[in-house]
Every structure is written in C-alpha cells, then in structure tokens.
C-alpha cells in the first residue's frame, strides 16, 4: 500500500489515537451534552417538538459549536511542530498535504463525536419525550419531524468542521501553545462576532439590504444561521424563504472548511519565515 492515501491514513490513525488518548475531549463532549440538554430544559422547546427545540438551540449553538471546534483544533498542527515530531515525520515519505489532511480528517471525526453525539443524543431525547402537553384532543405532528433535526445536525457539523479547520490553520501559524490559545480565541471571536459586525458595518455604511442573503452566507455563522432559518425553522411557515442563498451558504461553509487546510499546508511548508517574523514581533514586544 503506497500512494498519498496511505500517508493520509497513517497520519489519520496516529491523530485519532492522540484524540482518543486525550481525556479532555471526552469531558468536552460530556460538558457540551450537559450544556445543550440544559438549554433545552430551560428553554422548554424540546418538550413539544424538534422545531421549537432548534429554535431554543440555534443561538447558543452559534457560540458553543465554534468553541468546541476551536478547542479540538487549536493545537492540532502545533503540537507536532513544537515537540519536533513534525520534523521526524517529514523524514518519512509523507507530504505536508497528506499530513495536514490526515490530521484534519481525524480532528473532524473527533468533532463528529464530541459535538455530533451530544446533539444527536439530545435529538433522540426530544424524539422520545416530545409530546403535546395535553392528550384530551386529537394531535398531529404538523411539519415537525426528526428529519428537520437531522438537517439541523448536518448544519451544526458543517459549522463545526469549518471552525475545526480554521482553528487548525491558526494552530499551524502559532509558534507556541500560548500564542495558539490567543490566536484560537481570536479566530473564535472573529468568526462568531466579526462576520456579523462587518455585515452590520457595511449595511450601516450604505450597502443595500438586498445584498444580505449573499453577504450573510459568506461568514460561517451567518451561513449556518441562514441555513437553519431556511431549511429547518422556516419549514413551519408558509413557503417564502429567502433568508440566505442556500448554495452560497453551503459553499461558504465548505469553502471555509477547505480554506483551513490550504492555509495550514502552506504555513507548514513555507512557514519558517513566518515564524521568524512572528518571533521578531514577539521579541519586539518583549514577551
């Protein structure tokens, strides 16, 4: 077995082993489950169906999922570089692209477990427990359906994947664990708040509101929010749609997901110069 897939597979397995041996990720998953189910319990939407459950989860999810994804990704590519293992790995016939792809694939699988499982568990919980609060009248599901929650879950994972890959890119840029944390936090804030702030700014600056569906789709959070409005919550309303350009939003999330490895690969391949530049900046600040 040779070829690029072998390299990716080997790195993937190694990275998966790293993830599995990090008990913190298990704690993260449990914490996320507690947060998500706590939100549903406090919000009450999950008591009656999937759509109100998604309504309750939507905004907190915009913060929680990027946070979990950044935690999963912020050291993904840094650790090997810092410990010198990357230099060793590079003596093997593994190209940078294969290495980055393998790491990111494993981290994405980790995301599916750490984020996907808690959301899926909550979804199953809603499935099992949601019921009208009185049984004296005939009831029906309306448009509410597990399929809608599945759609939501798919969007959640897509959002998470975008953030994992962005965080991994940041981790490739960072020179130390501390700068990785700082850069990861920056990516998180920029992603969760920055895109919408830019959109606000551009609207305030006179951009036409007609550009919203397109512009919203450009940021990961905007794309996610628009997709959930369009394909999950909006289904309960008469067909109108137009919250976001669906193709553009999906393309944007996939694009962000691919953008990360490209940046990371480029950094690892040509990054020493960047490192040196960062080091000069750091020493200039006297850190």
């Amino acid at each position, binding site marked *: 077995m040779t070829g690029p897939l072998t390299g990716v597979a080997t790195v993937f*397995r*190694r990275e*998966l*082993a790293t993830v*599995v041996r990090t008990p913190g990720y298990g704690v993260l998953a449990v914490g996320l489950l507690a947060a998500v189910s706590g*939100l549903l319990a*406090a*919000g*009450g*939407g999950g*008591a*009656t*169906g999937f*759509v*109100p459950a998604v*309504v*309750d989860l*939507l*905004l*907190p999810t915009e*913060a929680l999922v990027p946070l979990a994804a950044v935690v999963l990704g912020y050291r993904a590519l840094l650790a090997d570089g810092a410990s010198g293992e990357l230099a060793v790995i590079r003596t093997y016939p593994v190209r940078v692209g294969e290495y980055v792809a393998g790491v990111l694939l494993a981290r994405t699988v980790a995301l599916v477990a750490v984020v996907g499982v808690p959301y899926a568990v909550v979804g199953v919980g809603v499935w099992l427990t949601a019921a*009208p*609060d*009185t049984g004296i*009248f*005939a*009831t*029906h*599901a*309306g*448009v*509410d*359906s597990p*399929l*809608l929650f*599945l*759609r939501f879950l*798919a969007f959640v994972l897509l959002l998470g994947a975008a953030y994992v890959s962005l965080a991994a890119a940041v981790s490739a840029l960072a020179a130390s664990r501390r700068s990785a944390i700082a850069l990861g936090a920056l990516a998180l804030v920029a992603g969760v708040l920055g895109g919408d702030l830019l959109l606000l700014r551009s609207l305030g600056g006179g951009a036409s509101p007609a550009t919203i569906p397109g512009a919203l789709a450009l940021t990961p959070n905007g794309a996610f929010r628009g997709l959930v*409005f369009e*394909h999950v*919550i*909006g*289904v*309960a*309303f*008469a*067909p*109108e749609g137009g*919250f976001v350009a669906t193709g553009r939003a999906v393309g944007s999330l996939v694009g962000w997901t691919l953008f990360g490895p490209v940046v990371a690969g480029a950094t690892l391949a040509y990054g020493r110069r960047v490192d040196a530049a960062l080091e000069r900046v750091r020493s200039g600040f006297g850190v």
Partner: protein
Amino acid sequence: MALFDPYGDPSRALRIALGALLLVAVVATAGAFAADPESAAPSPVAYDDVVELGLSSETDALMAGSARVPRTQVFYSQLQYVVGYNGVESFAATLGDGRTERQFGYPIAAYVETFDDARPGTTETGLFESTFAGEWTPAAEAVYVVGSDARSPAGETVVPFRTREAAEAFAADHGGRAVDWEAVRSRSYDTDSAATVRSMAPERWDAADERIAAAERRADRPVSVVVGEDAPTVEAAVAAAPANTTVVVPPGTYEETLTVNESVTIAGEGARISGDGEGSVITVRAPDVALTGLSVDGSGGQTRDPEAAREGREDGEVWDTNIQLGYGHGDAGIRAIDAPGLVVDDVTVEANASGLLLREGSHAAIRDLRVDGADEWQDGFMGIAGMQSRVTVTDSRFEGGRDGIYLHRADGSVVRNSTFADNRYGTHLMYTGDALLADNAFRNELFAGITVMTRPSGNAIVGNDVRNSSAGVQASGTRAYIGYNTLVGNELGFSTSSRGSLYERNVAADNELGARATTVVPSSRVVANDFVGNGEHATAGAGALRVWADGDRGNYWEGANVGTHQPGERAYRPTSPVDGALHRHVAAVAVRESPAVALLDRLRGTVPGARSGSIIDPAPATAPYSPDRLDAALDPGAGPVHADWRAELDERSGGGDEDAAMNARDRNATGGGIDPRATRAGPATRPISATRAGQATRPTSATRAGPATRPTSAATEGPGDA
C-alpha cells in the same frame, strides 16, 4: 489500547460496520433534505377530538333544535392540535388574516363536512340541518353552495358537497349556486367578532334602560283594591282586582301564600308577606304582573325537585329537561311561571331556597331587589333563577345563598349596577348568550364573581368590580367581550376561557394570580389590561404559546420594564420564572440580562403554535392603561371602582371615517385588527381590497393558504391570540 487500536488493521466486520454506518449517515442526511416534511397529509379525526373554534355549537338556537353548522377540521403546520371550525366561512375568514398564520402556521390539510348523502335541508326557521352527519372531504376537492337560503345562527352559511351533482341538487331546492373552494375562500364574510359584541354593549345598556322604563309604565296602574279595606287577604284582593289595576297592601305582615292569575300591580310599601314554610310564597301565572315595595319571607326550603327531574329524565324530551325541571321547580319567595312582563321593583326577599324563580318565558324587569339567602350556600339556592326567561336586573343586591343570579337559556339578559356578596357564584350563566353583565360589584364570592359555563356566544362582561373572591371572571363561550373589569384581591383575577374573545382594559391587582390562559388553542385577544401587585401576573395551562398583544399594543405588567432596557423594548413573559419575579425581586433583572437567558428568549416567539404552556407579551406597555381605576383599586378606603366604559366606547366608535380609524395608531383604541366600530354590517361593507389584499398573489392550493411570514419578524411583531 485494548479497546481501540488505530494502528492495527480493523477487522472485516468492523470495516463493514463502519462503512455501513457511514452509508446510513450519508443516506439519512441526504434523505433529510430530499424529503418534504409536510408531504404526508394527515387523515381527518373524529370531530369530538378537535379543538373547536368559529361559531359556537352550544348556542340555544343550535342546542334546542336539529340544526347543524357545516364543520371544518384543519391541520396547521405548527400546531399540534387539530382545529375544528364551526362554519366553513369561519375557517375561510381566517385565511385572509395573518394572525392565524403567525400563531398556528399554515394549513397542511383541511377537511370540510360534505352532505351528499346526509339529506340536507333547512329547519322551519331557515337554519341548515341534515338528517345524518356529513363525511369529511378535502376542502380543495369539495363543491360549495353559496347564497342559498340555509343559514347558521350567525347568518349565511356555506354548504359543502363532495360532488357537483349533489351541490347543484341542493342549490335547486334552496337557491344559491355551486362554486369551488377558491371562490369560497376569496369571498368576504360577515363574521361577527368579539369587537361586535363590544360595540353592542352600550346598546344593550340602553335596551335595559328602555325595558326598565317600560316596566315602570306597566306597573303604574290605578288602584282598585286595598287589602284590609276591600278584601281580607292579599290573595282575596288579587282575586277581586280587575286586570290592569293596582292592589294596595298597607304596611303590616300578612301570613299567607298567594297565586296571581291576573295582570295586576301589587303595591305594598312596608308590607311583608310571610309564607308558611311550604312551597313558594307568591306564584305569578299571568303576564305583566308588577310587584312593588313588598317584603317576602317564609318560603319552603326545597331548592330543587328531584321528583320532577327524574320524570323529566324518563320523558327525555328536551336536551336540558333535567336541569329545567331540577333547577326550575324548587321553592322561592316569588315564583313566576309563563309570566312574561313581570316587574319586580323595590322588593326584599328573605330566601330559604330561591329568592325569585322565573321559568317558561317569564321575562322580567327587576329593580331594587334585595335577596338575603342562606349563610351556607349548600342550604339555599339562587337569588334569581331564570330558566328560559330573559331578565333585566338593575340596582339590586344579593347576599348569601348559592348563586346570586343563575340564568339558564336566558339569552339577552342584562344584569347591572347590582351588588353581590357571600354567594357561591355571584352571577352564573349557562347556555345564555348575548347578555350584558355590567357595573356590578362582587365581594367574598366562594367560587367566583362571574362565571359563564357551557359555550354560549356574544356575552359582554363589562365594568364589574370583583374582590376577595376565589375568582373574578371565569367566562367560557365564544365571542365574549370582557372589558373594563376591576379584579382585586382574588385568588384568580380572570381566565381566558372564552374563545375568539376580547379581553381588554381589565385591571387585575393584588390577586394571587392575575390571569390564567386556559383554552388549549389560543384564539382570543388579550390586550391593554393592567396587571399590578399580583402574586403571579399570569399563568398558562396546556396548549400553544399565547401571544398577549394586538399588533404593537400589549398589556401593562408591573415589573416588565424594570431593568436597564428602554421601557417596552423587551418582550415580557409572565410565565417565565425570571420575568414573573421582576415585580417582586429586582435581582431578577440581573438574571434576565444574562446572555443565556437572552439567547434563549431571543427567538422564543418564533413558532408559537409548536410551543406550549406559556404566555408572551411582545410589546409590554410602559404605563398602565387605566391609571385612575388602578389607583382606586389599590386604595383600601375606596368603594367599588366604576369604569366609564360607555363613554369610552362611544367615544371610540364616534367620528372619523373607517379608513382613518384603521390607519391611525390611536393609543386609546385597541388598534390593529380590531375595529371598535365593527358592527354586524361592518365587515361585509368594507372594501374587499382593504381586507383581502394580496390574495391573488398567494399560493392557490388549499393546503398552502395565507400570507407568508418570516419567523424572525414573528418573534418581535406577532400580534397575538390567547
């Protein structure tokens, strides 16, 4: 790594399992996007299981005969309950209004009751009837007869058929023409609303004035006989008196019981007629009898006649024979049987059972009546029991006993300016619609000040003051107007049990619970009420999220504007543990402003139909709507509070053309969809374009009706039903 070895080659079984899992995940995700969640239209359910809106099916006109109202059942996208509409037109009228859509979503499926094989026809009074129940047909596939002579109690009714032949056959017999669903839903319907009832409340007051004035004239008759001079007993005097004269009873106590078979006035200022403790003291069996100035006591103590009720059950003739006989056949101070035009003025009854018992059309005008009932309600009966007898009561007082006034099938009754204390219920209506209960005071009522049971239609409960009782106003029914009431210090201020109704300008202060939302499917408007000092302002029973506001007008909630935000900026949820504590604990503000609460609250109103058990007011008012009444209510020394509702309603209904009234955001009017000037003729004469705008551009299928709404806007501007 015994459990997980990433370096070892996975076993074949594991590989297959992983592959299969991946495949399932991919297929399921693809399926989730490919499948249309609404494609499976639900099948019709038994109508008994739907939540009923639209016309009442329990009005006297329907209960008393064989008439039917064609029914509809609708499955909405957000609402878990199946909604039944009495009257196809009731459903069709909701299709043009965005409120229903915002509350329930759009109809996924709608079925109408079709009468092809049910032998449809009309009753003698022109109401639609059929020998058998209809069967359910999708609304879009049915054929409808419009403009026929078949009517519902509310007016013209549309009669659906499965086949065009049957529809045309019906049209041949009863007039009208057969049209399809599109034509039905694009028609404009004269649907009576609670606003109509509001506009009629002052008219009912005036009608009561006229009835009282007419009664006064009726009672004013020349004297023919004086007891003690011309006749030894009151009974003898009454027997001797010619019709349309007055029997004078001089002051004193007369120990006798009597029956009045002639249309006379019995005037007894200072006279007391004392029965022997058996049966009723005065029995009236003639029309236009007047009783003035008398005191009556000493009736029998039998509250009901179990014997009569049992016979009635066996005969089983009329649906409510049991109650008619059971409640209508006890002992009373004054009993009237088939005695229309009765006048009771300045009379006092010390009641052992009922004070005044009216039955079989004994329509009565009653002024200045005082009934003192039993100390324990179980021992006594009603102050006034009106069975199929329309009463007009004013300036009277009812203390003790079971119910101050109990009315059964007494449509059009008026009870006003009266005082009730220490009863079980102050005023209790059953199967009684189009009544006016206004400007009464209720104190220490064991169960409730005002209660309306069954599902009557069109009652107006206005300007009453209920205190220190178990409940203020608990009115079920449809199209009720419950406004300008002052409810203080009760366990419960009012409940929103009446459907399609309007609850406005009520003051609920210092109650343990201000208001309770009860109906499972919200269909009423609750707006411009003031909630102050209640333990809890409002709670909700099972059912969809209630939006208590009308457009941009909400209610005043003490505490809603505590905090750092601009008053009126934030939606208020009286049922939330945080918002509900704001008026008692300022610290709740800090919780309310937390990101977690903010994130959860932000979109909460988005799919109201799919949520349950709570109330939201998207636009809480910044100041009380009725500050003067509120001050008076909270002043321990002040007496009953009276709202000047007649002047306010008149003012709101006067002046300006219709468009101006609809366009202006008058802070004193209940704006939005409720037109205070709506009258019975109103909606039909309104330009179609104004109310049905945009219909042409809407999707045409029956299952995709109504205007589209963005979920984001629904959260912040959804006007609501409760």
